[in-house]
């Protein structure tokens, strides 16, 4: 898009929906998964697996279902989100099928396929039923209540492998805490969107930090503390780390106060130290992280982490090839928490890099949508969901590869675990929804004129009306002027966000640097 003038958008310019691109990418994702499936069969049994066709057909049907939902209800959505999710889920099914060969008595892939189908079904349902993500903002308090309830429920169920995060109903086990991630992220986004200015500009100033009034900060900190408290009780430390990370990121994005990060890190360090000392469970994991081979020296054989490191090392640069590794030596949790080890051993650093790039792309597209959206809730929601994925990948991948202490969590889409797959599909559905809003062209009626006019008055004579990095999206003709605050374009208004936070009366929704909220502020 070559810089159109702000007051006269080219008539008839339509943003391409890119649904055809999405369909082609989906076909590629299904093809890659099926090839991998056949490869496993050839490597292990010297034959194409009998159910390769049905596996491919099933995955293709899921892809098509998702695609149709997007095509009908989110035609402008980012075309990368769904294919990446399908590819990751396809790879996950493939790896679980491959690991099932090591444990013929305990097959997990059929169940995983059912859950994946349920996840894609839920994806379609969210895309079809949730017409506007802002609807969620209204249910912020319902979300948080439901989220906390879901997290508390497992306390009343027996612990499984040391963590009380499961409920078992009719042979199916489910981790309600997984789903609570989304609900609580929705709450964080909604609450912070509504109270941004108050958080940023009211309250006492102490030392170098501007402390918001307790009245404003209270509820969100309370929710966070309760979630983390419950998770610590349930010994689900990975998820508590996840909540913490998302909370700090959103607080930072909402208020722009670097101080929060410092406070957050201090709190995290203190909390981690306390938990590390008090909880023997955590203590042993930290010890294992620092000395992964201590159990070998002590003559007790290799720990799970050591086995995982061996698997990654055996993969080397190019991997042993699908089906040709020995990650089964990891034993317990090889299909869930440690599934990345199989991936790293059989596809090597090359495959692992591709995998991390897929996740990075997914996260980046989430952030992209956040940047492009006009309403603060949507922006925070997109950022929150994207960081949810990013932190989750970091915590689990860093754990099984010895970068950080190990915490039990599921690699999004890849690992065995119904709740996780379903939850991640809902996350992708929400990202599809917000990206659709972000890329949807505004109706070219009077509205455009008004906003274009605003943009025109703002940008003045010299300023380009569009922030450069927003161009690829090319959404919203009236959005242009908003870039001035962040982009530092010469003609834009001075960044009203002063560190001391005085002055700047709540003109728009209270935060001076948010000129880009016009679209929703009507």
């Amino acid at each position, binding site marked *: 898009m070559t810089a159109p003038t702000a007051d006269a958008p080219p008539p008839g310019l339509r943003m391409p929906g890119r649904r055809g691109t999405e369909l082609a990418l989906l076909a590629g994702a299904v093809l890659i998964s099926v090839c991998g499936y056949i490869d496993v069969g050839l490597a292990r049994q010297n034959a194409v697996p009998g159910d390769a066709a049905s596996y491919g057909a099933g995955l293709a049907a899921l892809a098509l279902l998702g695609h149709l939902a997007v095509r009908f209800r989110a035609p402008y959505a980012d075309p990368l989100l769904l294919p990446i999710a399908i590819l990751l889920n396809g790879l996950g099914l493939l790896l679980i099928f491959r690991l099932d060969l090591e444990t013929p008595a305990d097959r997990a892939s059929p169940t995983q396929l059912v859950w994946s189908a349920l996840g894609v079904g839920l994806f379609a349902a969210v895309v079809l039923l949730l017409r506007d993500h802002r609807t969620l903002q209204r249910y912020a308090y319902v979300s948080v209540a439901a989220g906390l309830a879901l997290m508390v429920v497992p306390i009343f169920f027996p612990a499984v492998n040391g963590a009380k995060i499961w409920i078992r109903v009719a042979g199916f086990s489910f981790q309600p805490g997984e789903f609570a991630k989304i609900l609580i992220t929705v709450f964080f986004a909604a609450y912070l969107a509504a109270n941004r200015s108050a958080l940023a500009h009211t309250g006492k100033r102490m030392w170098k930090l501007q402390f918001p009034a307790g009245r404003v900060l209270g509820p969100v900190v309370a929710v966070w503390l309760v979630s983390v408290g419950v998770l610590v009780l349930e010994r689900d430390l990975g998820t508590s780390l996840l909540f913490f990370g998302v909370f700090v*990121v959103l607080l*930072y*994005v*909402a208020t*722009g106060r670097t101080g929060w990060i410092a406070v957050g890190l201090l709190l995290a360090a203190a909390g981690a130290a306390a938990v590390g000392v008090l909880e023997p469970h955590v203590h042993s994991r930290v010890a294992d992280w620092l000395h992964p*081979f201590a159990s*070998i020296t002590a003559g007790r*054989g*290799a720990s799970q982490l*050591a086995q995982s*490191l*061996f698997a*990654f*090392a*055996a*993969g*080397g*640069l*190019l991997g*042993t*090839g699908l089906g*040709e590794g*020995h990650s089964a*030596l990891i034993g317990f949790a090889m299909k869930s928490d440690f599934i990345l080890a199989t991936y*790293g051993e059989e596809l*090597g*650093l090359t495959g*692992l*890099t591709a995998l*991390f790039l897929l*996740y*990075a792309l997914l*996260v*980046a597209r989430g*952030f992209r949508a*956040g*940047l492009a959206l006009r309403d*603060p809730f949507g*922006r925070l929601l997109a*950022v929150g969901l*994207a*960081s949810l994925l*990013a*932190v989750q*990948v*970091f915590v689990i*991948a*860093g754990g099984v*590869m*010895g*970068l950080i202490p190990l915490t039990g969590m599921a690699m999004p889409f890849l690992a065995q675990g119904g709740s996780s797959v379903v939850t991640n599909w809902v996350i992708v559905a929400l990202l599809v929804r917000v990206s659709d809003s972000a890329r949807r062209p505004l109706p070219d009626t009077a509205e455009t004129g008004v906003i274009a006019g605003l943009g025109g008055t703002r940008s003045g004579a010299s300023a380009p009306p569009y*922030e450069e990095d927003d161009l690829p999206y090319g959404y919203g003709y009236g959005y242009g002027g908003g*870039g001035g*605050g*962040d*982009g530092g374009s010469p003609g834009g208004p001075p960044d009203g966000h002063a560190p001391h936070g005085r002055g700047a009366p709540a003109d728009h929704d209270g*935060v001076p*640097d*948010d000129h*880009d909220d016009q679209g929703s502020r009507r």
Partner: protein
Amino acid sequence: MNRYIRRAGVFCLILLVALLLNAVRVQVFEAERYDDNSANRRGALARYSQPRGDILVDGEPVTGSRDSGGTLRYERTYAEGPLYAPVTGYASQIYGTSLLESAEDDVLSGTDPRLAPFPLWTDISRAQQPGGDVVSTVDAAVQQAAFEGLGGKKGAVAAVQPRTGKILALVSTPSYDPNELSGTERSVADTWNRLNRSGGRPMINRALKQTYPPGSTFKIVTAAAALDHRKVTDLDAATDTPSPYTLPGTSTRLTNEAGDCANASLRHAFEVSCNTVFARLGVDVGLDGMAEAAEKFGFNDADLKVPSTAARSVFDTDMDAAQVALSSIGQYDTTATPLQMAMVAAAVANDGEVRAPYLVDKVTDAHGDTVSATRQKTLHRAMSRGTARHLQEMMTGVVTRGTGTGAAIDGATVGGKTGTAQHGVDNKGTPYAWFVSWAKKDGAADPAVAVAVVVEDAAADRADISGGGSAAPIARAVMRAALR
């Protein structure tokens, strides 16, 4: 807000970059260390995922592989376990490998890069090569004769081909069945513990890895040194040695078991094994000369590999004259492996040249194509050709009219030397009976075999007679087998 969103985005990017860098660390830089970790079972899994290559004797495999269907899938089998155990060693899932199984492990397990037709491509594709075969130099008949000759006695036999250095037999008794050490069953550990606790120490390869005081068989070395140093020029001249002989610098009187040793000629002293003559000759040659002579035969060499490493045979290089005197008759702290003494006999038969002993003729890939063949080589010239001829005469005399008549074979020239080695506290242990010899078929150009036999629990306790009585018949059987 965009600025903060971007920063948050960059933060997430940093997390992923950290993951990638960590992946590079684990999969590239630390990979080798992790691969080599003792607790990493991948090496063992790969190793036992295919049948192991075989060890061949006379062209026939004496080993095999059995599919156990377990995780460590292929188990080693041995056709005649106890007979060839001192050659093959064992290959055990639990206890690893020994002897040839260990020395040629890379070939047998298929990891030797020389087995790959396209090494670089094999590196990339990680294709596993089928195990190659190891063709041993062992002669089944000679090995069998030695094993049967030793029978129930505790002892060892080493036989080499003097001209080439080929090891024709390595036998150690009591032996064990390496079959029982293959696999992962509970019984393997039981067998291992039983074998290790057993008083007969069946898993020691006495022919290669055990040293004994060589006793009078060492007189071959002393005689070679004396002749080469021209301390004796005429085999039949009197040597001007009193009997008993008082060790220099001491009042210890060295006596003889045999008679007629006072002023005996070298030939006579050799044939009836006079201690006094050789002790005095050793003193005459001196420590340096004796050590040099012993080392030229292969003593004090810790690096002898056949390709299994042989134990180091020792001739001390820091002794006073009395100790030199005792060492010159194979006592004090002189020790030798049976293989070393076979090399001594072989050097005499081979006109003074010590050929490097070897147990592996060649190594082939799974198709039988030669991957590498052992090159024969001379280790040292142990003595001059003339000295070797003199020693051949004297050793022949031992068999025709001396202490070793039990080794004589019709139709062949046989040279030998008996020995009885005192050992234990105050020499109270049952002496070791030695017999070292060589044989050459009448009319043949090359000597057929050189043999060293040691019997630990020799029944008779009378000087060299026990060597002649217990060990010589075994040597004779071995030589007969080699002469066929």
